[in-house]
């Protein structure tokens, strides 16, 4: 398979679009946790009960569609091999937890991969929607419509006082987890982010560095999400999150301006060194890849680099993860082989981009 062909299948179609504020906010996600009224939660449900839920979803929702979301495909975890499951995890279509629950776990995924509904995860239903860029309100609105659509066929576990009842007390009430993925290189570079995190935490929001096996915010990508789900309306939760994200965008832009003013040459040097590494290295680890991709993304946003599109960075973030590499290589790779294969895939991708130029 050619890389181009592989990419077209590997990248979620929605990921190819640029959303609002996409120089800083990569994506917005809303997830709703729901459960069936009369069935124990997946943690302790009996096999037959889980099987009933699976059949119900398959019968009622497979190949259905609503609004613009066409053709939901019902995928049982049991029908996938471990690389395929890992690919879905790396595309954020399912959680690692669902991938582990091979027997009764399933996911209903819309054709454009913007919506995925996990079945028999920690809750019976975890429905999530992604939007490119900063679009929390839109995501919430569409999540509500998705919820209403599911609700036409499902009696939810709901209590007037406690709201939507979930397996974990941290989700009860709205069952809502809203999050945005942000690229904050200037705040990270100037270490301002560390001072801002405790304040954000005080507002009932959580900030995490994302992806990679390591611990820190690899590639300067942070995920901000709400922690509180009870006692506040969905709109208020989104409003709070939105407010903090707006502040972070403002601070990041400000930090970028200052960096440009004070050390433009150093910044440019850093950007082009990383660009060089991505274009020419023969062995590259995922951590270095993430760092270089972050630098190049910043370089594009600041106008240092004009000849490549930002979407190739989105692609490479996904493609350079272990399961994707294996999927493309069509075989299991040792960590060392992965580093070699990763370097060649990145080179190939940049070469492709340059060919399109002419």
């Amino acid at each position, binding site marked *: 398979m050619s890389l181009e062909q592989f990419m077209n299948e590997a990248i979620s179609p929605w990921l190819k679009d640029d959303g609002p504020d996409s120089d800083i906010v990569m994506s917005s996600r809303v997830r709703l946790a729901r*459960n069936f*009224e*009369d*069935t*124990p*939660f997946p*943690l*302790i449900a009996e096999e037959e009960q889980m099987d009933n839920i699976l059949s119900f979803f398959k019968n009622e929702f497979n190949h259905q569609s609503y609004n613009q979301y066409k053709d939901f495909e019902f995928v049982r975890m049991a029908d996938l091999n471990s690389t395929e499951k890992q690919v879905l995890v790396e595309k954020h279509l399912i*959680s*690692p*937890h669902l991938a582990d629950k091979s027997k009764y776990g399933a996911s209903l995924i819309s054709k454009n991969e913007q919506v995925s509904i996990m079945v028999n995860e920690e809750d019976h239903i975890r429905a999530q929607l992604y939007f490119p860029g900063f679009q929390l309100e839109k995501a919430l609105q569409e999540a*509500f419509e998705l*919820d*209403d659509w599911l*609700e036409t066929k499902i*009696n*939810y*576990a*709901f*209590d*007037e*006082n*406690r*709201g*939507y*009842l*979930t*397996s*974990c*007390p*941290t*989700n*009860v*009430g*709205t069952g*809502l*987890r809203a999050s945005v993925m942000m690229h904050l290189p200037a705040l990270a570079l100037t270490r301002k982010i*560390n*001072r801002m*995190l*405790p304040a954000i*935490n005080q507002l009932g929001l*959580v*900030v*995490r*560095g994302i992806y990679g096996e*390591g*611990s*820190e*915010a690899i590639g300067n990508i*942070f995920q901000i999400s709400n*922690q*509180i*789900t*009870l*006692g*506040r*309306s*969905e709109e208020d*939760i989104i409003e709070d999150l939105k407010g903090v994200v707006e502040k972070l965008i403002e601070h990041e832009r400000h930090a970028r301006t200052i960096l440009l003013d004070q050390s433009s040459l150093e910044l440019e040097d850093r950007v082009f060194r990383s660009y060089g590494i991505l274009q020419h290295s023969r062995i590259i680890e995922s951590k270095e890849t993430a760092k270089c991709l972050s630098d190049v993304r910043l370089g594009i946003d600041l106008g240092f680099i004009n000849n490549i599109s930002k979407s190739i960075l989105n692609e490479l973030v996904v493609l350079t993860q272990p399961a994707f590499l294996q999927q493309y290589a069509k075989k299991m790779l040792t960590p060392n082989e992965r580093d070699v294969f990763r370097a060649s895939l990145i080179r190939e991708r940049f070469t492709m981009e340059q060919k399109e130029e002419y």
Partner: protein
Amino acid sequence: MECQECHQNPATVHFAQVINGEKSEIHVCQQCAKDKGYVSQEEDAYSLHNLLSGLFNTGSNTMQQQSLRKQEETLQCDKCGMTYQQFARLGKFGCASCYHTFADHLNPLFRKVHSGNTLHEGKVPKRAGSNIYQRKKLRDLKVKLQQAIADEAFEDAAQIRDQIKSVEKSLHREEEGEDS
């Protein structure tokens, strides 16, 4: 700020924890948060286990607390069989009915996890009896009415009052319908 566990990575997970009545702030990196059980594999940033054990060992011994603790030893959900002690250990409910079975014991937990909140304020399923939906709508309208009056937006207020009346009427009708 560096991670207080490994002192190598920057701390990216921050939260407060209450153990035996003492509040402490935790600043750790993602990896240590996972390793030490502060966060579960995916997204729950609290270790409910720690939270629960902290909550119910506050050392104070009022009569009310003593009797609550006695109850906890025998409390069991008759729908799914989960005992209160299992719940405290797992930090997860077994089924929707657990919420009712353990109801008397949940407010302190919810307050800790949800910044003092214990009651749902959000979306209501349309199917869950239009009653709940209407009552919620009524509550929202009444808040709106107070706001309109405070803002001296009397035209709006009059409109909202009419809406309240019509919701009350339909609610009344439904409740009568349920009785018969």
